[in-house]
């Protein structure tokens, strides 16, 4: 943690994925016809609706389940989801906004130093896995947080986790290990 306070690491959240349910059956065809920003994928049975204001792409199923991706923060995700529900309401469906849950958060972080990946993998055996033939980054999984980090040799780290807090704590956790194997 001390090391963390020395360097102000910017953790940029690039994507937040959330789900919610409308508790009512949605007629995809109607949405497709009357929505201005809608792609209807009939073969898989879903409708893609894109909002501009919080830049969000939502996948809507006829069962009423909706997945929202593309938001840059949790609040924005919720806001976008509500807007989406509102627009569905306007189209005439009896929409109830329930079960909102943030499912996945993707963030990017940059370390000011490079990292020796083979050394890092050796020191963190069970959690880290490195296959240079397949992917140039080390894949480090933290089971307790259910977070996965991809650590590149340039020092940039991509973190995915169930919420923003988990992501932040994952970065904090990994910092000392990464610091050990720095160049």
């Amino acid at each position, binding site marked *: 943690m001390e090391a963390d306070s020395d360097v102000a690491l910017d953790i940029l959240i690039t994507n937040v994925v959330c789900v919610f349910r409308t508790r009512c059956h949605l007629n995809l065809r109607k949405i497709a*016809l009357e929505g201005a920003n809608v792609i209807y994928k009939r073969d898989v049975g879903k409708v893609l609706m894109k909002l501009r204001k919080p830049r969000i792409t939502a996948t809507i199923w006829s069962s009423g389940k909706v997945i929202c991706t593309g938001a840059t923060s949790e609040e924005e995700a919720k806001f976008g989801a509500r*807007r989406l529900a509102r*627009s569905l309401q306007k189209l005439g469906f009896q929409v109830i906004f*329930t079960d909102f849950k943030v499912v996945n958060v993707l963030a990017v972080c940059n370390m000011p130093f*490079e990292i020796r*990946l083979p050394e890092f993998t050796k020191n963190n055996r069970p959690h880290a896995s*490195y296959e*240079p033939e397949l992917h140039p980054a080390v894949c480090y999984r933290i089971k307790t947080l259910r977070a996965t980090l991809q650590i590149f040799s340039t020092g940039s780290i991509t973190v995915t986790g169930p919420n923003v807090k988990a992501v932040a704590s994952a970065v904090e956790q990994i910092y000392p290990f990464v610091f050990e194997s720095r160049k």
Partner: protein
Amino acid sequence: MPGGRVCAACGCSEIEVDAARGDAVCTGCGSVLEDNIIVSEVQFVENSAGKTPTLGGGFHANLGKESRAQTLQNGKRQIHHLGNQLQLNQHCLDTAFNFFKMAVSKHLTRGRKMTHVIAACLYLVCRTEGTPHMLLDLSDLLQVNVYVLGKTFLLLARELCINAPAIDPCLYIPRFAHMLEFGDKNHEVSMTALRLLQRMKRDWMHTGRRPSGLCGAALLVAARMHDFRRTVKEVIRVVKVCESTLRKRLTEFEDTPTSQLTIDEFMKIDLEEECDPPSFTAGQKKLKIQQLEKALSKKLEDFEGEITSYQDEIEIELENSRPKAKGVFANFTKDDCIEDNTSSLLGEEEAEDEELEAAANHLNKDFYNELHEKDSVKKGEGGECKNGNEAFVRPPALESLLGPLPTAASLGITESIKECISTKDREPGENTGDGELDLSGIDDNEIDRYILNETEAQIKAELWMKENADYLKEQKEKEARIAKEKELGIYKEHKPKKSAKKREPIQASTAGEAIEKMLEQKKISSKINYNVLRDLNSKGSSTPKKEDDSTDDSTNTKKLSRRKSIANRNIANPVNSVGKRLRPLISTQLAKKAATEEVTFQNAQAEAPDIEKPAAVVVESGPVAYNPDEEVEEEEIEDDDDHCMSALQLMGGNGKLGCCLNY
């Protein structure tokens, strides 16, 4: 022997088949009718490892065994098949088979193609042994996407808790060097390439890169150093990377200071300094460019500031030089124009303070300048009264000027302040979680824009129809087909398979009848020792046994009787579960088992009455114990003791041994 075959060329029917060469030749004209004849004989060939495995044999191995044993045997065969193609030695293959057994016991083969799992096991062995085999080789052999294999491999390594040591590109060098055919100098070129690789490692070129790419680059340079002309294409074919990758590695190496050394120098000297990884330097370059851009933009802003100030001054001058109205009316016009300005300010939705101030300044300047100019102009004309008028008018004009401005500002600000306060109030209210849709902060107008009107909807519908015409066609055809089939009455609904078959409940008056009927329905299991059942049955009740004896062949009778005796004991339980539920419930009884048949037989016999007394629980200790001859018993041995199972299998299935070990 092709009986009755006639030569196509000469019509002669005397055709000689040579099994050794695999040819079928006409003795009349000598034309070859067939070559590479496939035969199903068993042949022996000598292996490079000195062993003589059989070719064409081993087809009979999988009959009549339990699923687990079959899986393992199948796996073993596939491992050997793949392993031989990769030229792995026997030790590696055995290790791979062990990995496979572990995987099967952990149910990792479920939901995955057997070939993938086997390839993953083999690759794991390659990694742990350090053989120069790449995942790419395996995927080449299997024609499978390398990433799919990689995924399986990673999963396997994780589940089996096996740490595969990281790949060293140095491992691949001898292999690739051999393929590039350097002849006598093979060793020297390899050594040079190794040195190059080590240098690359120190220069941070190897992290995150495919080892084969680095090898390729190193070998290329090494070859050139020793006067071998190997083109990029040749190297690529051997190393299996893309041309651009190779070139990129070469350029990266060029950037390092080592590239400046001559050949001799390189062999002798080792530079101390280490370089940054190439992607890092690229990133640094980007950062620098960004910083430069920022600095530039800042400078631009400064310049712009200057320019605007110049612009203002010019405008002021221009206005001053314009002809102005005289007298009292002048003030009115000025007031109007000032008020226009203020009103325009009011009209702006987001009037920033700075803008207001700047505008106010400008207006003040203009006003004052104009006033001064006017004074100077009008001084010339004279008319103190006018001056006095103007003088009197000036303060109120000022006030009027200053008056609206602050109020405009204040008005604008209060509105925004109100909004801010109101949004803050709304925010805590959002987290109601009732399920009601909270409409705060949602601009309905904007959302309305998202909804198309009728004409737009029509147009969109047409477009969509055109785009998805193919899919719609398919759907229609499918429906038409289904309708036809329905008419014809042969409509098959392809529902997902149900795992359990539902049978009619058997209605019988006695237990014996019930058993008979059940047996008729159900297929006979190979897992039960019917002999034993029959004998047991004789002790229990006589009727079922008599019925048994009258039925079919020896094996069948045995099985039937066995079944019936089992059923006899546990009428309540469905006999379907016979095979699988055997072991867990038998432990106590089996513990008493002795090695010999008779003893166990007797034991079971003794136990039989005991068993009947408690609950009608599955009791198949009898069959398991009695006939060790039956290969059948091996199947009972399941997940727990893999080691034992494999030993069993290898030894060809000695039931006794297996049973003892297991229990």
